[in-house]
């Protein structure tokens, strides 16, 4: 594949419980009903990066040559998160929703996403580094493995060259900084703060109402999904930490702190 006049970019997003909300388990699963649901914070950076890549090479709306599609798996309620990405400027969306997917694991999720991406003829997939609920950080790597596409994860910088059909990233992790390059197609995950996600404009919000969210069930996607390959045996809220000693500084607070650390043998 070369000279991508019309890039097709997919962004994988997830609707998650608001990261500011207290989360709890119900029936061995995260309770998703009782909390506000939002677009995963870290996926907003992926949406923004996809739009910027398209815009750097002619745009994706109003006659621009490229398209940006969000793909999400979740309950029908996930249309709220999908709408938000559409209002940011994404062209269209695919929502995979099926009762059989409730409680599915990362292996099933990655299988569903990979099949949808493969069938959609995409050149580039962009994800956030993790969801703020499960925090596994495995989906981008799994999609890459399933598709046999280049894995370009934990990117703090992405440069796409459509003419050469290549992509280069700067990967930033606790292990250091790597410069990585590959030919498209590729699966990218972007770190928080790679960009400043735009706020949906009023025009964008109005336009989003007219955009297509195509809902697919598992049969339409064309994969069968096994039940999860890991199982929660039991769960319990951890005992709340009780407050310890709190002193008010009246000139010797620092010494009191040092004494506490010494008593606890932490020095």
């Amino acid at each position, binding site marked *: 594949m070369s000279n991508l006049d019309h890039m097709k970019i997919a962004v994988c997003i997830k609707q998650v419980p608001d*990261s*500011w*909300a*207290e989360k*709890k388990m119900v029936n061995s699963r995260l309770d998703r009903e009782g909390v506000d649901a939002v677009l995963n914070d*870290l996926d907003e950076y992926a949406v923004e990066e996809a739009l910027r890549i398209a815009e750097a090479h002619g745009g994706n709306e109003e006659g621009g040559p490229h398209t940006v599609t969000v793909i999400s798996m979740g309950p029908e309620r996930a249309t709220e998160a999908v709408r938000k990405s559409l209002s940011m400027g994404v062209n269209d969306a695919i929502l995979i929703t099926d009762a059989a997917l409730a409680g599915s*694991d*990362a*292996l099933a999720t*990655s299988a569903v996403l990979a099949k949808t991406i493969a069938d959609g003829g995409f050149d580039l997939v962009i994800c956030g580094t993790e969801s*703020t609920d499960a*925090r*596994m950080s*495995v989906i981008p*790597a*799994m999609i890459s*493995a*399933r598709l046999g*596409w280049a*894995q370009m*994860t934990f990117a703090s910088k992405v440069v796409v060259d459509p003419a050469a059909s290549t992509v280069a990233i700067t990967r*930033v992790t*606790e*292990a*250091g*900084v*790597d*410069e*990585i390059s590959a030919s498209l197609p*590729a699966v990218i995950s972007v770190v*928080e*703060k790679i960009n400043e996600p735009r706020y949906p404009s009023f025009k964008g919000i109005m336009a989003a109402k007219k955009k297509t969210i195509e809902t697919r069930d598992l049969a339409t996607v064309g994969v069968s999904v*096994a039940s*999860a*390959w*890991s199982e929660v*045996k*039991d*769960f*319990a*809220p*951890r005992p*709340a*930490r009780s*407050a*310890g*000693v*709190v*002193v*008010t*500084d009246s000139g010797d*607070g*620092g*010494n009191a*702190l*040092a004494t*506490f650390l*010494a008593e606890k043998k*932490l*020095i």
Partner: protein
Amino acid sequence: MSTVIILADFQGEAATKTTAELATVGARMGSVCAVVLAPAGKGAAMAATLIQGPISSIAIVESDDVAKHGVAAAADALAQVAKAKGAEVVLVASHAFGKEVAARVAIALESGIITDAVDVAADKVATQLVFGGSTTVHSTVTHGTAVITLRPNSVEVDLTASSAPSETVAVTISDASKKSSISSSQPPVKGGRPELTEASVVVSGGRGTNGDFAAVESFADIMGAAVGASRAATDAGWYPHSHQVGQTGKSVSPQLYVACGISGAIQHRAGMQTSKTIVVVNKDPEAPLFEICDFGVVGDLFAVLPQATTAVSAQK
């Protein structure tokens, strides 16, 4: 006895304490075979640094492809060794590289995966602390090889001397695992401080620093601690985002966490409330973090921290 494969963790060419932690947990479940992924010609030297932990054997894979192609090639190699050894468990460190390697190994072995375990028992039941450490979950892999990632610094490590026999294992990295290429690599800028997620002491600053981290850093240095920051502090550009502790940043679980000028929103607590001991310094007596601290000082961090720094220095 079942075989437990661990991916030996290295900093440069020396095995880390994390490797011994993986071996400690692995040995409960079976005979530990440590896999050393090394550049050509370096395998024996790197394997020789595996001197601690209950390791039964070492499998050396020498391949320049791992350094060149990263996660995908490492996972390809590890999955091949796991298959060849008939491993029942694959244990990998829970950092960015380890979790991604484990993800691809799970796909290659058609196996279930559990990430971020803080412990794994002899019966392969993994313990995870989820939702920012507010809930303990026990789970098991029910299909294939149990692929589990273990958080560094979470188990009592068995530091028994080890001198396990090693063998070289040949693998073939597939073309699909060579789709991306690393052209240059730089180790993290250390600045003399330990890495945030591996540090046994973390000192963090928040909004209350007003952007001046000098007092936080001085106290961190006297404590041999890593420096963390709240989202408010990183969003304001006061400290690099890579130091952010919290729901969207790093999760830390050190022996001691000292929060300075951080009120303690859920967002932040989610990244630090599993710390063994929590100390809070804040001007605001109403700061929520005081509710979960072991010791707190209501006061100005710019007065309290320098005094504490001097006092700790005197006691050393």
